């Protein structure tokens, strides 16, 4: 019994030292804020860029096609840490923007390449007869795309997009490289300050896990709504 009691009191001490003492939980709370801010903005930028690049890749014209191809190729061919650092220290070096916004742009640019492939696949997955039916009613290409093809594509690609967002949130754990204090960096900071490894690192993992769990549950509900018209 004493063994378990000793372990438990060690655990409590360590917990107090890492999260309570000197208000260290504030570091983590602020970190959560940073992670969420970056992720949300990056998701929007990613979808926007993803749609543009998907349109480029699906275009019948040569120039957009080449541009889209190069974009996807370069982004997929280089590590995201490198991209983040190039965007932060080179491209936005002299621009006066909040750090977290620059980081969000970097992650959005990265995510856009992957999202564009998901969107492209989604649009191609909608039967061509749908486009023909829309056009035969007199809708123009844009109306057919936005009212008929994309709503169906969204339903098809929703699970893949959710997956991409989850990957994106976890990917933001590298923003410490450009000096932002997100969840990961806060955990790391506590680790250095307390010389404890287990508590801050496992704590970090738990926070990410809970965030993503909540997000997954929300996305499930949205997907259920989207699937209303499927009767299977």
């Amino acid at each position, binding site marked *: 019994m004493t063994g378990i009691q000793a372990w438990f009191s060690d655990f409590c001490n360590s917990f107090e030292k890492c999260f309570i003492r000197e208000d260290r939980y504030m570091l983590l709370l602020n970190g959560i804020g940073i992670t969420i801010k970056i992720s949300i903005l990056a998701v929007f930028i990613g979808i926007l860029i993803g749609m543009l690049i998907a349109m480029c890749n699906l275009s019948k014209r040569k120039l957009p096609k080449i541009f889209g191809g190069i974009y996807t190729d370069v982004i997929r061919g280089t590590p995201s840490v490198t991209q983040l650092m190039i965007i932060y220290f080179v491209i936005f070096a002299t621009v006066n923007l909040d750090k977290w916004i620059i980081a969000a742009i970097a992650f959005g640019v990265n995510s856009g390449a992957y999202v564009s492939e998901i969107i492209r696949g989604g649009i191609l997955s909608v*039967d061509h*007869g*749908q486009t*023909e*039916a*829309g*056009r*035969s*009613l*007199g*809708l*123009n290409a844009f*109306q057919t795309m936005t*009212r*008929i093809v994309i*709503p*169906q594509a969204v*339903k098809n690609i929703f699970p893949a997009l959710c997956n991409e967002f989850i990957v994106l949130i976890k990917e933001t754990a590298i923003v410490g490289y450009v000096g932002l204090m997100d969840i990961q960096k806060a955990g790391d900071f506590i680790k250095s300050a307390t010389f404890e490894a287990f508590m801050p690192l496992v704590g970090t993992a738990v926070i990410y896990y809970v965030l993503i769990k909540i997000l997954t549950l929300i996305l499930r509900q949205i997907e259920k709504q989207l699937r209303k*018209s*499927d*009767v*299977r």
Partner: protein
Amino acid sequence: MIQVKNLHKKFGDLTVLDGIDEHISQGEVVVVIGPSGSGKSTFLRCLNLLENATDGEIYVDDQLINAPKVNVNHVRQKMGMVFQQFNLFPHLTIMDNITLAPVLLKKMTKEEAVRRGRELLERVNLSEKANAYPAQLSGGQKQRVAIARALAMNPEIMLFDEPTSALDPEMVGEVLDVMKDLAKSGMTMVIVTHEMGFAREVASRVLFIDQGKVMESGTPEEVFTNPKNERTKLFLSKVL
């Protein structure tokens, strides 16, 4: 109403339509028959510009429609099209399928379109399905909705591309009945089909197309009982 002059269509090296000249007048019900691969569906699709003719001219109401500056969307609004695979919009209810185009194209207000939608659903005997989704309907019901959807734009001409070919045999009748009613109401129709009995009963004119050419054209009586062309005879001997 529709005037086709020297229509050619090639897919790469393959010639599908090889010079078609045809005139379709108001109120005519033209049934197009012919072996598969003969170009009859392509002919129909050229009429509403789902395929671009390689050569030749198509006039609708004396307007040349296959010219570069023509607004194809306006042309298509005059022509309803019914497809073999129905192509209903699966993410929309039956009523929304019908009202989408007239409302989006500002032909009607939402209320007018819904009223018209109810009329049309009644006409195809599907009033109770207004709020269902396409996945809840049988093939025959889907095709009847597709007809109602095309009619919602108040087209001058209806084009049917093998409307019963994807249906189970017991559902063919209900779709043909709707088409018969439509023909009786004086709608101009061009129908590609393999239903010879239907062609005989409803057509005001039958076109036999083979190898991209109109081989024979005449009343059902002339074409079915007294075909002049050897190919027509051969084809009819196989299908009748």
